[in-house]
């Protein structure tokens, strides 16, 4: 059942709920919570005033002091701690290092300013050096009273008061607008309609709009035209496919285990579950709880058990000689890392060997949380006979009716009655077929289970050979406590995450959503909200969205709707040089971002524009075009056949997320994707010549160009109309006069080349599988065939390839 899909519902949602939220907000605002942000423009004027603790003081302490004066008790020197934990200020003050109100009388400043190598802090062998500016900031901070503040992300978010005061306006626009007004800047006007509809269609579905969809929006001058587009896109089954992409990176999802045997798995059934749930708009708290503890729910079903594959999508080693217990611990570490990074934005793994150097996470905290994952009936390695599939228990047999019927039929053959040699032979063959089916096709998804509770001990220096103190499950002590009646297991962990006072989970989630629509998160370190994170330039916005998201009942589609309906989102990305120069990282959002589309989306754009796309949803992974010998060198023939089992026909044109992801060697044309070795939540967009080679030379793109050329040739007669139509299919708008001239010259130059070399035209038009028979045939006379149509199609193919490689085609403007 879809939730919150009604037109205009979401934009009103936050307004409907606002009195409830804002009742408590006004009070907190008067307490000065929102006053912590000192904006950059005021910095110079405030030079003599107290520096902002989070933005200015903390980074100096963290980078230079906390290694020896931080949370890690075992490394602490001189009994002095300078982290922001409660009581730390007192500690520093009582130890006499800091005299609040007087930098000159504070021994800390004396040591920091010392020139004697034996006295100066930080000591020379630490290789840390404080700049003159750093020292001035510390002095100002102490002069102003040396107030320590809790790290912003560790206190619960509160919505900006301005949002409660002006309920008729869009909260995102209010907050961003107010900030821009302080700088004397303003947003750009709304993007032109063709650009806007392409942007929002790509962002919400990962596919380009069709020319008809563009026309419908351009022609719809009604008040709610844009909202109607959003409704349509949020209801599209392709929405879930697009939103699954960042989850696959976070869940280090792959279709094989990695390492030497690199056996295939059935984890794709989890990928299908994810797409379904995202399309259903299952509330985020429920979605996450199912992923973490779907097996432990009182209303657990096969679907919620399937959800827990999130924590079984890790690498699995089966190398000869691999030590099971060592590998089991590697897996446990991976689960803590994936869970903490994805949902909490905490770098828990830093506390695997020792107390965290910067965040108040102790080594005990780490192993106490790990205890929840240390109950799986697993050995740590995957074994089994050499076969294509290799899965390690516990598994969920997740079979639909069709596959159950298939099993029953094979079973019947294996047990068929009858006497004599031929009946026996039939039985043997049937049994072999049944065994093969059960090995390679009977779906077994690796999922979580608590069937083997173990005693968890802190590992000295993270080494499984050095277990120490025994402990039970607990959540990190510096965050709000686990409810007394919560179960002490993964389910309790999930309940704790979504308790009302957890400061991290909502912020981390809205930050990742923001990243999907703006290329970067409001916190530019989405994997780390700890004290070493980059403080968000728009913290009020982040916090307000976090509150709204939680108050909405964790409805992701409502959050996405809120974002894409804002003027901030809808503004133009066509900023001038001065705008790029004054805010190169676009921290204040005075323009919409332009960024290159993810490689998976680029491929889908090419398939969709050409009409090749097979839009079916879900199912076993497919094997589209890959360069030759990509898999084969990574193969041990004695173990199994690693020849790339290339797909044919319509399976070649499925969306990128269905491409088989071999963990030891990612698909060659999915550049910049996570390597799927460990959890990754940061989007990485790079530019390399190798990417250009891919979109220019990969048969995927060349065939798409050829099919696009033939598609527009069927629709239009004149070369210029064909070019314009192809251009529209790819970038969603009609070329300008100047562009049309260049496009025609592009076609003309290619035409001239193929007129002189018809064999080249034929070779080009024979690339790819679809509909090439017209060109591939021709025999000995083919080389002399100078059919104008052949030449024209080849030239138009290259022109379409050029269009697919335009900056605008590769970019979400």
């Amino acid at each position, binding site marked *: 059942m879809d939730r919150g899909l009604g037109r205009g519902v979401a934009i009103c949602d936050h307004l409907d709920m606002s009195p409830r939220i804002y009742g408590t907000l006004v009070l907190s605002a008067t307490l000065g919570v929102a006053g912590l942000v000192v904006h950059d423009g005021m910095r110079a004027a405030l030079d003599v005033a107290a520096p902002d603790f989070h933005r200015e003081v903390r980074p100096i302490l963290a980078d230079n002091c906390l290694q020896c004066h931080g949370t890690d008790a075992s490394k602490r020197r001189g009994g002095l701690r300078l982290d922001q934990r409660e009581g730390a200020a007192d500690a520093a003050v009582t130890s006499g290092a800091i005299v609040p109100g007087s930098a000159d009388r504070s021994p800390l400043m004396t040591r920091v300013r010392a020139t004697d190598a034996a006295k100066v802090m930080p000591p020379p062998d630490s290789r840390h050096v404080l700049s003159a500016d750093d020292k001035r900031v510390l002095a100002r901070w102490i002069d102003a009273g040396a107030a320590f503040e809790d790290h912003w992300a560790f206190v619960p978010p509160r919505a900006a008061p301005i949002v409660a005061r002006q309920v008729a306006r869009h909260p995102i626009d209010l907050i961003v607008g107010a900030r821009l007004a302080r700088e004397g800047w303003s947003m750009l006007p709304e993007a032109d309609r063709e650009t806007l509809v392409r942007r929002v269609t790509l962002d919400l579905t990962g596919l380009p709009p069709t020319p008809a969809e563009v026309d419908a929006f351009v022609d719809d001058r009604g008040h709610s035209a844009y909202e109607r587009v959003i409704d349509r896109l949020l209801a599209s089954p392709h929405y879930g496919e697009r939103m699954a992409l960042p989850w696959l990176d976070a869940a280090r999802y792959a279709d094989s285990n990695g390492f*030497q045997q690199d056996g295939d798995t059935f984890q794709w059934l989890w990928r299908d579950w994810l797409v379904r749930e995202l399309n259903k708009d299952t509330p985020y708290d429920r979605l996450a709880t199912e992923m973490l503890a779907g097996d432990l729910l009182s209303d657990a079903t096969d679907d919620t058990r399937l959800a827990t594959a999130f924590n079984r999508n890790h690498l699995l080693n089966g190398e000869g*000689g691999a030590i099971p217990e060592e590998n089991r611990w590697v897996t446990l570490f991976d689960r803590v890392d994936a869970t903490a990074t994805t949902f909490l934005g905490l770098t828990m793994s830093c506390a695997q060997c020792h107390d965290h150097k910067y965040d108040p996470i102790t080594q005990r905290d780490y192993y106490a949380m790990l205890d929840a994952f240390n109950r799986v009936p697993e050995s740590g390695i995957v074994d089994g006979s050499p076969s294509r599939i290799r899965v390690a228990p516990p598994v969920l047999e997740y079979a639909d009716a069709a596959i159950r019927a298939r099993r029953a039929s094979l079973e019947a053959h294996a047990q068929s009655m009858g006497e004599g040699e031929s009946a026996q032979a039939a039985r043997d063959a049937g049994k072999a077929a049944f065994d093969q089916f059960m090995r390679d096709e009977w779906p077994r998804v690796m999922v979580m289970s608590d069937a083997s509770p173990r005693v968890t001990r802190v590992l000295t220096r993270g080494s499984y050979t050095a277990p120490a103190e025994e402990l039970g499950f607990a959540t990190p002590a510096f965050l709000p406590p686990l409810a007394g009646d919560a179960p002490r297991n993964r389910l309790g962990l999930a309940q704790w995450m979504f308790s009302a006072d957890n400061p991290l989970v909502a912020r981390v989630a809205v930050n990742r959503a923001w990243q999907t629509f703006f290329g970067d998160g409001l916190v530019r370190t989405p994997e780390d909200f700890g004290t070493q994170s980059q403080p968000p330039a728009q913290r009020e916005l982040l916090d307000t969205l976090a509150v709204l998201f939680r108050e909405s009942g964790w409805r992701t589609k409502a959050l996405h709707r809120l974002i894409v309906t804002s003027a901030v989102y809808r503004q133009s990305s066509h900023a001038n*040089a001065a705008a790029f120069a004054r805010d190169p990282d676009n921290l204040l959002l005075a323009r919409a971002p332009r960024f290159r589309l993810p490689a998976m989306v680029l491929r889908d754009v090419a398939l969709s524009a050409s009409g090749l796309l097979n839009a079916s949803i879900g199912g076993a992974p497919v094997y589209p075009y890959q360069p030759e010998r990509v898999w084969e060198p990574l193969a041990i023939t004695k173990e199994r056949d690693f020849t790339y089992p290339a797909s044919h026909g319509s399976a070649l044109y499925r969306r990128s997320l269905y491409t088989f992801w071999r963990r030891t060697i990612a698909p060659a*044309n999915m550049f910049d994707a996570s390597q799927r*070795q460990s959890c990754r939540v940061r989007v990485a*967009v790079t530019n390399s010549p190798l990417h250009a080679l891919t979109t220019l030379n990969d048969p995927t793109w060349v065939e798409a160009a050829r099919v696009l050329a033939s598609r527009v040739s069927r629709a239009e007669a004149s070369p210029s109309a064909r070019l314009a139509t192809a251009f529209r299919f790819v970038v969603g708008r009609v070329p300008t006069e100047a562009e049309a001239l260049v496009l025609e010259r592009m076609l003309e130059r290619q035409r001239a080349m193929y007129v002189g070399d018809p064999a*080249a035209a034929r070779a080009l038009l024979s690339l790819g599988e679809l509909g090439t028979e017209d060109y591939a045939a021709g025999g000995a006379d083919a080389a002399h065939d100078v059919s104008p149509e052949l030449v024209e199609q080849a030239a138009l193919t290259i022109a379409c390839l050029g269009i697919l490689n335009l900056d605008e085609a590769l970019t979400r403007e």
Partner: protein
Amino acid sequence: MSDPTIMFGTAFRAALTRRDFLRSSMHGIGGVALASMFARESGAGGAVPFRSAGLGLAGLPHIPPRAKRVICLWQGGGPSHIDLFDPKPELARLVGQDIPESIRGATRLSTMSSGYGRFPALPGLKPFRRCGESGIEISELLPHIGGVADDICLVRSMHTEAVNHSPGVTFFMTGSEQPGRPAMGAWLGYGLGNECDELPAFVAMTSSDREKSCGQLFYEHYWSNGFLPGRHQGVRFRSGDDPVPYLGNPAGVTRGSRRDLLDDVATLNRTRAAQSGVADPAIETRIAQYEMAFRMQESVPDLLDFSNEPASVLELYGPDVLVPGTFANNCLIARRLSERGVRFVQLMHSGWDQHGNLHSQLAVQCRDTDQPSAALVRDLKQRGLLDETLVVWCGEFGRTPFGQGPSEAPNGRDHFGRAYSMWLAGGGAKGGHVHGATDDFGWNIASNPVHVHDMQATILRLCGVDHEQLTFRHQGRDFRLTDVHGRVVHDIIR
């Protein structure tokens, strides 16, 4: 550029040639765009601002480099130190008897041998010979490497925690046993930049033993950029016609017609920018990236064209040199990459994992790798390049001094990380030098232990990099190749 129609003047085409492009200031940012060729990386992860592909970080190198480039000849599977580099007469004396428990202690062994009741001493298969003026003892299984003994620095006291292949290789290459960290070549490219504008700074190549006797695979994470920007990922050159995926034009596309296409695409990109008024530097960056792709299409085939190599050089590398995909072929490509300024060539060869076929396969392995390895050293030396090129010959661990298989007739050796050997040549490493020693059994290190992190620190040092200062802020922590460990082994630096 305010009026796009001026683009259609006759001078326009010429303005798009590469040289003019470099000088171009059409948007006043042509040069900047090229300098920041790969500039837009999403996420502000670096503690240090991003710089261009060509430039490294400010302040690097930290010290004058001894090596400008590195060629790593990876010997995957775990070459036996006992059989190749570390003569142990005591094993011959005790052949068949158990290695004493006092020696073995609590050494962590792989599960293939950890449950053994017997640990029968198995001496080196062939005699050792004193080689060169330095008189380093090397097995006669490696006559060619023996022939360059005076140029190599043999380290007999390496040790690692890893007991299995993939963690061991990952550890040497990235400083961590778990996949996900940047490889050494990525770190060096990040810190020092790329000296070559037609090839990547970091190239990986793989080969395996001809009889496929050994199941070692080479995973992408061995040359990964990890959390460093994507441009620092090693680019894998494969053997055969298309060494880089998608390098070749599609059938029916000529170099000339591709040139025309790229010119028209660039014109369209600039027209769009001018007409929409967008001044995003990423647009010029993209045009520059397409230009570099075009240049790579020419430079890579040229790299692989051996027709200008004299017969004497080809003979040096041995009979396999012209067979694509062999170790010998890759060694010659490695030299040619290095000559062109590629900073880190990671040539990975597998085949040293002799658990049960030591007597037959070890010699085959040596035949495949001995001559090309030595040839590379000689070839670099005769070109005057050895002084500035560091060659590293190393595997993930050594092999057990006891025999694996039937205890009365062992036929192999298991993985062994507690002590093993490797060698370096050129690039500031001491030639004709032996560093460190093991006990009489080749089991424990007797002097000057060198941990993997120490070797990483030393390799960086030879490249002019202080391993403690080359860091990257990720997940709130400044990561480095050597984690929080590593001491430079000054004794092996010339």
